[in-house]
């Protein structure tokens, strides 16, 4: 059971959240200009990193904010959390 540190609500059990996958994958500004390979890379290819991982979480049952969690994917240790406000 993960305790997800919502930057707004504080640590909560993971059943309050929806996992949103790897963070920092911006949507291409002009998809039409991309090759199929470039689009596939945005669409499907992931680092799936073993260790330090930046990822998106949504506080579904709480404040309904999307935010970023940094987590070690081997130990599941939470290394930090930030709001999109912070990270911009």
């Amino acid at each position, binding site marked *: *059971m*993960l*305790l997800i540190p919502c930057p707004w609500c504080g640590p909560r059990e993971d059943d309050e959240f*929806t996992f*949103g996958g790897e963070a920092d994958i*911006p*949507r*291409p500004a*002009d*998809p*039409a200009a*991309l090759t*199929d390979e470039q*689009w596939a890379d945005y*669409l499907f290819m992931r680092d799936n990193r073993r260790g330090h991982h930046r990822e*998106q979480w*949504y506080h*579904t049952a709480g404040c*309904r*904010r*999307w935010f970023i969690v940094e987590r070690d994917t081997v*130990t*599941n240790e939470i290394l930090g959390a930030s709001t*999109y406000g912070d990270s*911009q």
Partner: protein
Amino acid sequence: MSQPFRLDHGGRIHRDAPLQFTFDGRPIDAFRGDTVASALLANGVSLVGRSLKYHRPRGIVSAGAEDPNAFVQLGHGARTLPNRLATVTPATPGLEVRHVNAWPSLDFDLMSAFGLAAPFIPAGFYYKTLMWPRRLWPLYEHFLRHAAGLGHAPNAPDPDRYDHVHAHCDVLVVGAGPAGLAAARAAAQTGARVIVADEQAEFGGGLLATAERVDALPAPQWADVAAAQLSSAPGVTVLPNTTAFGLYESNLVLLAERLHSDQPDNAGSESGARVWRVLPKQIVLASGAHERPLLFANNDRPGVLLAGAISTYLNRYAVAPGSRAVVFTNNDSAYRTALDLADAGVPVAAIADVRVDPDGNLPAQARAQGIPVHTGAVVVQAHGRGRVAAAELCSLDGAPLGTVECDLLGVSGGFAPALHLHAQASAPMTWNPEVAAFAPQPSHGIHPAGAVTGQLDLASVLRQGTAAGTAAAAAAGCSNGHTPAAPQAAETPTSDLKPYWLPPGELARTKPQFVDLHEDVTLDDLRLSLREGYESIEHVKRYTTLGMGPDQGKLANPLATGVIAELLGRDPATVGTPRHRPAYSPVSLGAIAGRHIGPLADPVRVTPMQEWHESAGAHFENVGQWRRAWYYPHPGESMHEAVARECLAVRNRVGILDYSTLGKIEITGPDAGEFLDRVYTNAWKRLRPGRCRYGLMLGEDGMIFDDGVTARLDDQRYLMFTSTSNAAPVLAWLEQWLQTEWTDLRVYLTSVSEHWSNIALAGPRSRDVLAAAGTDIPLARDDFPFMTFREGHVAGVPARVFRISFSGELSYEINVPADRARHVWEALLDAGRSFGITPYGTETMHVLRAEKGFIIVGQETDGSVTPDDVGLGRLLSRRKDFLGKRSLSRPDSARPDRKQLVGLLTDDPALVLPEGGHVVDAPGRRRPLPMRGHVTSSYFSPVLGRSIALAMVSGGRAALGERLYVATLHDDRWLPVRSCHPVFYDPEGARQHV
């Protein structure tokens, strides 16, 4: 005479409360405070079970949860409990105890014939044979299956309920032995919120079985005082009968509290057991240690007990497990057992000590008492069949030292820390040579204390516990300055343990020496495993099944580590131990499921009209968590008849549908239109207030994700309808784009799904019904045209009315606040009575939309379907980008042979195609036979008087009218069909515009 082995004084049993239970039908006298095991021993019952593989006679080995032999079946029928341990099961009046794994009886077990075959069925024998002839494997397996397994499952549903509790504390203390009690006391004194749990019915652990003194009190008495103080201390929760069985990430600790679950005669209890989900700030791990058995021939004979267990039976239960004892040890602790035996009047014929010069206090006391002590000596074989009759001794170099008669053989190979919880959480552990076992290292807010650290001296253990409790409380932010004093006990200088793994010489080779008593894994099995190259500890475990029994190898694994290390000539630290897995002790599935069963298994969501639907006799279908009215059969009506009646009512008169389950999202802000432009495939900015539009939402992969109507309420407000099952996912998805990607858009989303109920009136007379129900909204065709909405009142209730249609008929979807929806629903029914209004359910809704060729996301689509595939390419804007657009120009999305939505008409109009049936060009015996597609929806259309179907067919749109077949192979039929345009009724869409 009853209870021949019961001592006439001492112990913590209640002699004033005698009771009786049965073992294989035989009455057993006991006292309250006994376990089933202590009572059996008191009655001289030494044979309690048969071993798993060879069916050798087995007796009680320990006095706790680590016992490998004492598995019994409790009770019978629905309430039976398979594979319970006699050593931890309280003796209660009338308890029905039966052996497992012997036939026909325990004493006369025909299956012990397996013992004769032992030389030919070593570890993993089944990998090497039973392969020929191939067709006989099922027979071999049938035999293996019925030979395996232990107890019997209940034969009816569980009458008990189980409980779940969430708990939080500053310090959780696992184990209430000397270290745990000291730690809990210390933590409590700092004002910390403390939970202390112990698997036994009484707090005290080892204190209850020793003659030592703490703070000048006899140890058991001190334990009682400490336990009493804790239970009355504020902020302290004491949990006896509670096993900590799992330690997970975030230091979530799971406790299983036994209430009645080990009492099969306690019928239908409200709570058979309670699982505590504890999130402590800090953990004191005081889980103690397990005594390690020693290897010698026939070391599995009944009457061979762990030395510490003998002391427990003597001191705690006033039971002498034998009448003449031999003790075999490699450390000092077993001398205490020898002294306990002597005090109890049980002669100790010999102590065999592996060590050459044990010089601790206890050996000295034993010698002083005249107990014969053989140093540098080992037991190499136990004689006797049904029970140990003698112990054969020899020196470390294999020289015989004679045979000593005894009916009780106490063994101690030292103590292995019970670090299971610690290890489960992958916390670090290191090899501790002093105890020749792995011990935990402090980590992640876990403070080990007491025997689990390898410390056995009582005085030191008490100090350790106090320090751990204080440190844990401080780490949890609780401290009131003063450091609690540790309870005092006498120091006992001890001499070091001498690791002893393999017996000397070849003498014992001829007889089995069991490393894992439960799994019947012998020393020879380990040798074979290593010989064949299965050397990693995990390979040994999997090849020999070492430690895989219900006892989880609590005794076997620590022994095996040393044995394997010696056989391989390696350092035990490098051999390691099989990975510890939850649960430390088995926990019933029901207890883990808790209350989440029956009506609480999963929320059932309903609309304000639910009671009305029920009283109207509706049949329901599950749609996600929703319970929706499926159809409303009249008395004697079949589903088919009811649905036909409902369909015709809508087509010819008017029907009413509870459509409240649709998701509804209010979208507000200056950029709302731009936002819709990006998430929907079609254009929105120009939609005028008061108008509605159908929208398609794609995933970025270009596949259809959701669809629905969105209305523009006013300049800056839209109301989006989502499909029922996508309400939550769509909201999360929209918020994700707004919050993480398009942060510049000024848009707010608010779910109003629960506030607005949605009642659909559909059919040529729906306008009349709405008028009759009373509304201030002008209903004339030109005042309120198709695909517009109006705000006003319906039946006196504020309402938003949408002129949209999922049936192709003149239709109004009336949104009213849920608090008044039931009133409006009934008002419309009253108003509609003279027009023949008919309530209809989801099945009719499906038939009506299929007649119109409207798709349902999740039925026509399956995550691999694009808008063009279902003929909605016209909704793809060319002038703007939208989510998923780029994926639609990938090579595969442009394939001409993609599956496309078509209609199918059977040659036989009465024949309704099976949904999920596959479409082929022509019947054929060849396999695989190429498939063109499959039937997604199929119904009998009452208004058309024939069957209709929608299908996804490869290249189907270009070949409308082609001859195809739908295969139903279970009856070997090929149903001839022709493809057609997927709109079967009112293709020009005139009816919804009237």
